[in-house]
């Protein structure tokens, strides 16, 4: 498969790449831990996770201690423990054992209600800077990122300005995937014929691991990408560089791209057919084909015969 972008003259590509690489060294961030948030959504998700954990541990730890203590103290060999075979019901204890979990759930329920609304993926991030629009299409087995306002597109590499909210709209060319950059926060499904919305922001420049979090077939393990957050000025330079590098992603190029392939290197297109994402969502560009047929035109039936 040929990508027009790869035919670009070398100097045009070298500039933005060098800028990104240098900033990455400065940023020095890697990892994928959800406990090291690199943006407001991930930070808030983590807060809710830890709060819920604390609420539950307050009940669970004493319970676990009580289990061990009761089991030890009331062992058959302990003469000091009083055997009370008639202690089989106590209204007071029943009241308590129903109330404790109920109270915990009351607390948690509040947290769930507020958290679900505050951190709804579709809710915009409050910010003075207007959000950057990025359209995501999951393909078998690679990620396509379209920047509608910039009129460019990239594959398996997502460059965004740090500190600027990103408004993602996402869909899938074929089967379901889940778009997930662990250190930036919430993941969301991509589904064919449907569009989902997600808001994320990277606070600091850095390179963040992104992946599909929904198994999608044989090439799934390679469906990861790098999200590179760069300062706003560097982002502008990168966009200009990509535009200058040329290449056009139009419907025929998309149809070619939508065929199954694995381990696609990152690439970019300096121009995109306007409204490409909406054509995919509306299925005016048909769902991507599945596996190519076997040698004799029969569907493949076993690993041994897979072509």
């Amino acid at each position, binding site marked *: 498969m040929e990508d027009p972008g790869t035919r670009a003259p070398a100097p045009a590509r070298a500039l933005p790449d060098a800028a990104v690489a240098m900033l990455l060294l400065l940023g020095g961030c890697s990892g994928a831990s959800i406990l090291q948030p690199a943006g407001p959504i991930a930070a808030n998700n983590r807060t809710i996770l830890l709060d819920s954990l604390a609420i539950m541990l307050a009940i669970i730890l004493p319970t676990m201690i009580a289990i061990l203590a009761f089991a030890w103290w009331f062992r058959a060999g302990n003469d000091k423990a009083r055997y009370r*075979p008639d202690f089989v019901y106590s209204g007071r204890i029943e009241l308590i054992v*129903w109330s*404790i979990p109920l109270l915990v759930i009351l607390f948690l329920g509040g947290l769930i209600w507020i*958290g*679900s609304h505050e951190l709804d*993926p579709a809710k915009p991030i409050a910010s003075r800077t207007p959000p950057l629009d990025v359209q995501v299409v999951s393909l078998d087995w690679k990620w396509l990122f379209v920047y509608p306002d910039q009129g460019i597109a990239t594959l398996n590499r997502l460059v965004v300005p740090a500190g600027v909210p990103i408004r993602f709209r996402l869909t899938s060319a074929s089967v379901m995937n889940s778009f997930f950059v662990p250190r930036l926060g*919430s*993941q969301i499904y991509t589904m064919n014929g449907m569009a989902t919305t997600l808001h994320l922001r990277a606070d600091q420049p850095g390179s963040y691991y992104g992946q599909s979090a929904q198994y999608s077939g044989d090439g799934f*393990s390679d469906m990861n990408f790098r999200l590179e957050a760069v300062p706003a000025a560097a982002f502008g330079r990168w966009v200009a560089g990509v535009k200058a590098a040329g290449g056009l992603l139009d419907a025929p190029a998309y149809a070619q791209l939508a065929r199954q392939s694995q381990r696609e290197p990152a690439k970019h297109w300096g121009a995109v057919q306007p409204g490409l994402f909406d054509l995919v969502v509306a299925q005016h560009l048909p769902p991507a084909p599945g596996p190519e047929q076997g040698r004799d035109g029969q569907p493949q*039936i076993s690993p041994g015969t897979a072509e």
Partner: protein
Amino acid sequence: MLGKLTWSAIPFSQPIPLLAAGGVALALFAVLGWITVKGHWPYLWKEWITSVDHKRIGVMYVLLGLVMLLRGFVDAIMMRTQQATAIGHAQGYLPPEHYDQIFSAHGTIMIFFGAMPVMIGLMNFVVPLQLGVRDVAFPTLNSTSFWLTASGALLVNMSLVIGEFARTGWLPYAPLSETSYSPGVGVDYYVWAIQIAGVGTLMSGINLVTTILKQRAPGMGYLRMPMFCWTALGANMLIVAAFPILTATLAMLTLDRYLGFHFFTNEAGGNMMMFVNLIWAWGHPEVYILILPAFGIFSEVISTFSSKPLFGYRSMVAATLFIVVVSFTVWLHHFFTMGAGGDVNAAFGIATSIIAVGTGVKIYNWLFTMYGGRLRFPTPMLWSIAFLMTFIIGGMTGVLLAVPPADFMLHNSMFLVAHFHNVINSGVIFGAFAGITFWFPKAFGFRLDEFWGKMAFWLTLAGFLIVFGAMYVLGLEGMTRRLQHIDFTEWAPWLYVSVGGIGVMILGVASQLIQIVISIRHREQLRDTTGDPWDGRSLEWATPSPPPAFNFPVLPRVHGEEPYWTIKRKALESQGLGDEPDYEAIEMPRASATGVVTAFFATLIGFAMIWMIWWLAALGFVGAYATFVVFAWRDEEETRISAEDVARIDRARRASRQAWLDAQGEQPA
């Protein structure tokens, strides 16, 4: 003639499945050959294969489940070793098209053919005994249910060498499972195996619900039933309510795949999220179908070995029914990340955490059952204490996943994998082992060896904590599930810890096998002569071990919540067994080959439909229907056990009880 089936269906170029299948085939032939040489076929056919005795069927269910648990465990070993050897540029030893089948088969086998048969088997064996009756409501249907489950298991295992298994995960999410993305026979194997086994499960559910509602010993009101019968009732009501959803969903998928319907396709108005909703509308209740019987086992075990009645019995019944109802209102928490919006996610998140109230109440009631008890710690009790300690953690991580913003980070991660293995292992699997060691003497007349039982316990517990502890960390480190190779090398250390843990678990499994072998060899020392090896409290312990085909010579009269405990106290106080009853002849249902023959034809139907061999499918349908007709027109329904035989068997039981009573009299407890 043979549809899509050609020689290319057999993966000659793949050494792993071929060697595995060769090994299995060799072992199978060895066993069959041994049976033939020893001349055991008539015995096996008459006493087991065509048996409609709920105890025999229960034992066969558990045996099938244990073999399939081993099979699924081999898949687990392959998954752990593959991930540990495929980090960075390494690709491990399993290519994606093979690895993807393995994790799909692992989940399918463990849930449908491992955990389900073990739990259904224990319910089958124990429930009629605890209810004080002679069999389930529909004995021949019971046999058919079992053999249909075995038929499904056979089909799944055939896919190892003939064709391929699904590469979609254990729930074949559309559209990945549609013909456009999965053109091979893998999904068809899945669909037909689950459909056939699912019919068996549904009939088994109807059977046990009917048994519990309509067939209890005189005097056993609902609120006198042992806790295990209550949780069995809950689980089987869930089966009756939930399995038709699974059947309908897979039927729609089948129509999509075979006749070009568009229920769940991308094109022509299909909606894949409809599949996801429907499959989880069954899938979440399924979790409670598995865990409720386990809760019942823990209730029996903890009460017996605390030498106390279950604390807060009525509260436990209420909590069980609460779980049954609420389990149908939470399915959406499996896909919070579809972007449904705050209101929907919050509603299902809160519903999910509410279900934890029922479980919490149960934990506290078990805790207070131990309070004031006189605790003994044989193997079943160790499994139960370990359950209490680890299930709480699994429950807690489950509630964490029910908080949508946390789930947005943890959905489909290794944390999720750790969570559901945590609850299924410490709940269902520990429960199964507790139940098997607890009721083994009842089924076979001798106890299991305690030393190897405890070895198995400690090694399994340690391995389990290491494997899934590491997975919790991996999930927090951002690792997603089902990766055939791992590009992100920072996860490597924890993957190595996890594979080390599976090594410890292998030792645990080996100890289980050694335990069975040692126990059979030492069965005379381990013999249970009284029928009541654990100082039990419910009616199954009133029978000899193993119980006679008719269970009870005279149906017991129940006066309280713990009928056998009361009988035992009375006997100890009066130093006598009470008067010998008037023995009468007993009519028991006749053995019938209906079940196994129907399942044979069902296997033909499944295999033929998978490979599109239409004439064979038609033959299978005709054969299965003819079997039913023959059964419906049978002349004799029952066999008669004479009053003399009943008297002889029961007098032996009374003699051993009298001996026990005399021994108690000499050394008053």
